[in-house]
């Protein structure tokens, strides 16, 4: 197989790789906020349960979680989440990344001084106004570097989908490598991820710069 065919075949999986990436971001970013707020709940039970769930999600391999969501329901209850494998893959990724984002958000929220809340309270802002107008924008700025780290990791983590044979770029590359007994597909995959992350870096850097109008 020529290098060109190889790249072409692997490119076909690139759409799926992007699907995992963007859909995970789309769901995990807001879900992480919900998890963070539950984690910071004043109700001890809620925060303890959330904390436990977060530690399980961060303490076990994503690979295992992918297998659990994709095949677990079938072995346990005799049905699959969906015939389209993208669905369980996104569920597993979104939940896993939400756990990481939640801890980042929590750190960001807790780093905002009490004085900001008190100023809002005295000025008469509602709880929602306080959070969305004053706290969240400052949190977003502070957590940008950590979020960028996670997003870069996510680009590479999309390759985990090979564990459930979801036909994204890396899975295809691995199959080609096996059938052709060639190492070339892995090099191609490496280049793909590297370029992908260069773009991610550029976009996140641009965003960080936009938020640099104050400190």
């Amino acid at each position, binding site marked *: 197989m020529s290098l060109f065919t190889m790249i072409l075949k692997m490119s076909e999986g690139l759409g799926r790789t992007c699907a995992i990436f963007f859909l995970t971001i789309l769901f995990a970013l807001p879900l992480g906020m919900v998890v963070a707020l539950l984690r910071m709940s004043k109700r001890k039970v809620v925060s303890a349960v959330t904390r436990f769930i977060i530690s399980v999600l961060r303490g076990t391999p994503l690979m295992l979680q992918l297998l659990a969501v994709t095949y677990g329901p079938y072995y346990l209850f005799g049905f699959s989440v969906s015939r389209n494998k993208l669905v369980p893959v996104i569920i597993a990724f979104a939940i896993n990344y939400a756990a990481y984002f939640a801890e980042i958000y929590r750190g960001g929220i807790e780093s905002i*001084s009490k*004085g*900001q809340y*008190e*100023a809002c*309270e*005295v*000025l*008469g*802002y509602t709880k929602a*106004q306080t959070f969305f*107008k*004053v706290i969240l*924008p*400052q949190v977003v*700025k502070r957590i940008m570097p950590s979020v960028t780290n996670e997003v870069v990791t996510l680009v590479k983590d999309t390759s985990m989908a090979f564990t459930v044979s979801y036909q994204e770029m890396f899975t295809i590359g691995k199959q080609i490598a096996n059938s052709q007994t060639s190492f070339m597909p892995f090099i191609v995959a490496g280049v793909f991820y590297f370029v992908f992350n260069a773009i991610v870096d550029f976009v996140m850097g641009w965003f960080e710069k936009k938020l640099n*109008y*104050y*400190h």
Partner: protein
Amino acid sequence: MENVLEIKDIQKSFGDNHVLKGISVSVNKGEVISIIGSSGSGKSTLLRCATLLEKADSGSIKYHDTYVAKTENDKEVYLSKKELNKVKSYFGLVFQQFNLFPHYSVLKNVMDAPISVQKRDKAVVEEEARELLKKMGLEDKADAYPCELSGGQQQRVAIARALALKPDILFFDEPTSALDPELTGEVLKIIRNLAEEKMTMVIVTHEMSFARAVSNRVIFMDGGYIVEEGDPEEVFGNPKQERTKQFLRNYQQ
């Protein structure tokens, strides 16, 4: 005399720490009251109870004719949240640490609450905000961000932000304590101007000569009590209580 605020016999504890042991303060329209006292005597806690950042354990707080809190059958009862929001427009608070919103420009810091809390017309609010900034000597800083300003300028923005909501009474909790000595003057001058305009104010301060010059009444707090209260010339020039004398002596050194 029109009464703006009446606090009667409020008590406040943090755990075992009995911080306010029955404080009563009455503020009339146009009055400027300074509160002095050593650190830990409960001055901030008193302001925080008055501005509803803390809840008193007992006693009453009344703005104009509205009881915000009072003791009924041995229980401290506060107004409902909705009613409290209305009362909040009666007062403003200037913090020691300014607490400006760093992500908003100076102008937006001043304009945002009148627009999003009081739902007032944006064009009118902007005109008033610029006028306020001019009064604070900051008309050329409208588009700057707080991080670009000196401490004294930030505190003046904070005063403008509080005034933009047109409060009937303005509280200051050590407004110059976080400032470099050479910057306190500009903030004190603004407060003095407000006093001349008959703005009702309660000021916690360690600036004794300022307190003596600007206030109609001085309150000395110690250990959770009001130990002495009266005309500034009396309290500073001829204190009656031993503890007041001692405190002022320490300050003169």
